[in-house]
């Protein structure tokens, strides 16, 4: 089974939409060494995360390699309603991309 690259949960709470997302990514810093070969493991991490709601960009995250493996992101925004769709997409430093959306519940 293919692993889902992004899991999103969005919920209305007191007029504010609360979005929680879990992404599946190695987030290599480029500083770690392969213990067997002694060579550095090349950096591989998510750089940009964009969250949109109804065509509006709600949040743009710029991440460095110091974000933990399998990153978690949570944020809140106003002006949403139940049933709206939130889209989250990321791009990493090697050109990898993923995108997913969820309905606000």
């Amino acid at each position, binding site marked *: 089974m293919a692993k889902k690259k992004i899991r999103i949960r969005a919920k209305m709470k007191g007029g*504010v939409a609360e979005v929680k997302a879990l992404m599946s990514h190695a987030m290599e*810093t480029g*500083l*770690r*060494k392969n213990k067997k070969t002694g060579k550095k493991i090349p950096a591989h991490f998510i*750089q*940009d995360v*964009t969250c*949109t709601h109804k065509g*509006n*960009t*709600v*949040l*743009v*995250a*710029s*991440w*460095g*390699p*110091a*974000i*933990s*493996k399998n*990153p*978690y*992101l*949570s*944020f*809140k*925004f*106003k*002006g949403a309603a139940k049933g709206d769709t939130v889209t989250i997409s990321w*791009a990493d430093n090697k050109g990898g991309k993923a995108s997913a959306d969820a309905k606000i519940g």
Partner: protein
Amino acid sequence: MKRRTFLKGTVASGVLGVAASAGLLMPRMVLAAWPKAAFDATKIDDGLNALYGSASTAASGDIKIKAPDIAENGAVVPITISTGMKASSIAVLIEKNPSPLTCSYELGGDTVGFVSCRVKMGKTSDLIAVVKSGGKLYSAKRKIKVTIGGCGG
């Protein structure tokens, strides 16, 4: 020295101008401009200068950093930054990491001043949250103790 401050000022306003004229947040433009220099910087001030064009922040009591006092595993330290200010941008820096700038968030007009994520910390260090509100920078600090390093595992 004066010339330098002047240059910094113009760069900052230039960046702001561009951001404003582009409707602040065009995803593609932001994608093209991942602030490499800011993330490569090894000092907090350099990182802030590269990111915001200024490193002078005012300490604020209106920024809350929710994080463990002692992180058992430096590879995964959950943090939450929240502020009551109308924030346009939030950045997180960890002083003792190889590159202090950890993440920065550009917030849309309806976005609440709240972000939560998990970060890596090499060792015990101050975590600094910087909030940009109304063109000014505010910051708050919190020390987090790390018992196992996050870099190298």
